[in-house]
């Protein structure tokens, strides 16, 4: 049986890689992909804790997270399409409309 902290450490590393991706990359689509990966890291840790505690509700939470992530991706990509239609860019540095 694999100790739970192996999974928690893997989830932590993946989450940190996702954070670095969000901060470092300038392509808004890759930024969005990094956010999805952070969600996945959190899901992995949730399932690992559900297994450690033998509590099925942890898996139910992950199910809801996946559903919300799917809806979020649909709306987020629609927003990116709308931004691209008006501003012709996917670079976050060019999206400065709210800058004071």
């Amino acid at each position, binding site marked *: 049986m*694999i100790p739970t902290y192996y999974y928690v450490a893997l989830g932590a590393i993946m989450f*940190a890689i996702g954070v670095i991706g969000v*901060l470092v990359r300038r392509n808004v689509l890759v930024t969005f992909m990094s956010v999805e990966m952070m969600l*996945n890291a959190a899901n992995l840790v949730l399932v690992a804790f559900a*297994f450690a505690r*033998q509590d099925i509700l942890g*898996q139910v939470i992950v199910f809801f997270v996946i559903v919300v992530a799917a809806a979020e991706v*649909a709306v987020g990509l629609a927003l990116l399409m709308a931004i691209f239609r008006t501003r012709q860019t996917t670079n976050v540095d060019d999206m400065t409309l709210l800058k004071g």
Partner: protein
Amino acid sequence: MELAVFAITAAVALTGAVAMVLSKNAVHSALFLLLNFSAIAVLYLLLRAPFLFAIQLIVYAGAIIVLFLFVVMLLGAERHEEGADALGWQQPTALVMGIGLLAALLVVALSGPLGAPAGVAEGYGAPEAIARALFTDALLPFQVTAMLILAAIVGVVVLHLREQQRG
């Protein structure tokens, strides 16, 4: 045996994650993300979550990655990072702070009493058990989720309407 599967899958997942962030081409990023999602699906099997294994492959590896690839190719956004960074000092700072976050997360992750479970309960992780929890303890969130998806569908349709169609 189980540890070997975990080690290989974890290595694949981390490779996919790092390669996704480092790829210059957004299409490659999406494909590396697919690799990462598939590896996590295998880890769900190791954690006795066959239902989530299937959901992960269908929703993430199937629907979400296809959506990403579709939008990347539609926008022609594969290579849109040529110009110089507007704030050059941001990237090294972000890298340092990300590594700091990783260190903090690992300290917390490895300090708790997080051993392996003593044993696996009979029927743990079976789709029947998840369905029972979903339709009893989590019935209200389940219903709210339906509203959320409806709102998402309506929102996407509204976002794609042309100005003159909105009336």
